[in-house]
């Protein structure tokens, strides 16, 4: 039995995100959970249930098997925050502005030391006009359409992290004084 769920489209699916839903799929099987996302290609729903001892249990229901989706309630701010951050470690963890400023300065100093043109644009670093680095300025935070530059900058930043892993105070903050 095919229902209309796969045909709704991204604009309708995104309205279900961050809500607690009950999904009927397969033979009289119901699953409940907080909806994290819907895959636009397969219409699959990603449901998260938080465990009492921390961590989460994730269920993904394939779009072709969905029979009914019912919204139970909306997430409050705390749950939304938890959904966005605690589950997927690849998303940015929030660092305080001072820490970010130091890191940004560190990365910028390192790039300048390597004779690479870099400018600060708000919270981002713009490298040679073609690559952007967002917080927290790690190799995974580089964005560019130029693969070669992306690769080179990522390797450079990787060596900053290995050089000074957890100590932003001794970062190239002090270096500009010695190099200039």
């Amino acid at each position: 039995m095919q229902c209309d769920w796969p045909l709704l489209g991204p604009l309708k699916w995104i309205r279900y995100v961050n809500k607690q839903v009950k999904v009927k799929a397969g033979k009289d099987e119901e699953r409940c959970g907080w909806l994290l996302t819907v895959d636009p290609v397969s219409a699959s729903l990603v449901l998260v249930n938080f465990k009492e001892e921390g961590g989460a249990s994730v269920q993904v229901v394939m779009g072709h098997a969905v029979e009914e989706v019912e919204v139970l309630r909306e997430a409050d701010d705390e749950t939304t925050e938890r959904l966005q951050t605690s589950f997927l470690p690849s998303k940015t963890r929030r660092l305080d502005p001072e820490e970010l400023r130091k890191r940004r300065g560190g990365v910028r100093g390192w790039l300048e030391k390597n004779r690479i043109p870099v400018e600060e644009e708000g919270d981002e670093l713009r490298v040679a006009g073609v690559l952007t680095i967002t917080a927290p300025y790690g190799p995974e935070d580089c964005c560019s359409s130029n693969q070669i530059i992306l690769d080179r900058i990522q390797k450079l930043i990787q060596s900053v992290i290995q050089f000074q892993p957890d100590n932003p105070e001794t970062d190239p903050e002090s270096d500009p004084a010695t190099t200039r």
Partner: protein
Amino acid sequence: MATPVSVLRLPKGPDPNCRGFDPNSPRFIALCRTSIVTSAASETDAEQLPKEQHARSVLRESFLRCLLSMTNKKVRFHLHERVKVEATFGASDIDVLNFQVSDLHTPIGVQKEALIRCQDVISFTFEA
């Protein structure tokens, strides 16, 4: 039950001429109705298209990160007829039509490497 079972038949590979998201490929037309129908609907309303594309990319990125976090974790698949199997997740293809898994525990033994067709899967679960 932990004795590995030899592979009986290798699955047929994808058509080398098609590129996954190509909406004209026979594989896509046969199996993925979703994206085609949506694009057709929004073509009639040009204003909606950028919003739809933004929503689509946000949703897809979230889903891809979810798949990424699943790699090398034990996943329980719920298949049709209430069959449950457990395996270590490897990768998914771009259309989410097949999952590559290792150490698939089936009722007839453990498959060292396997491809699970997503049409056979109703849902799957793992611990984050």
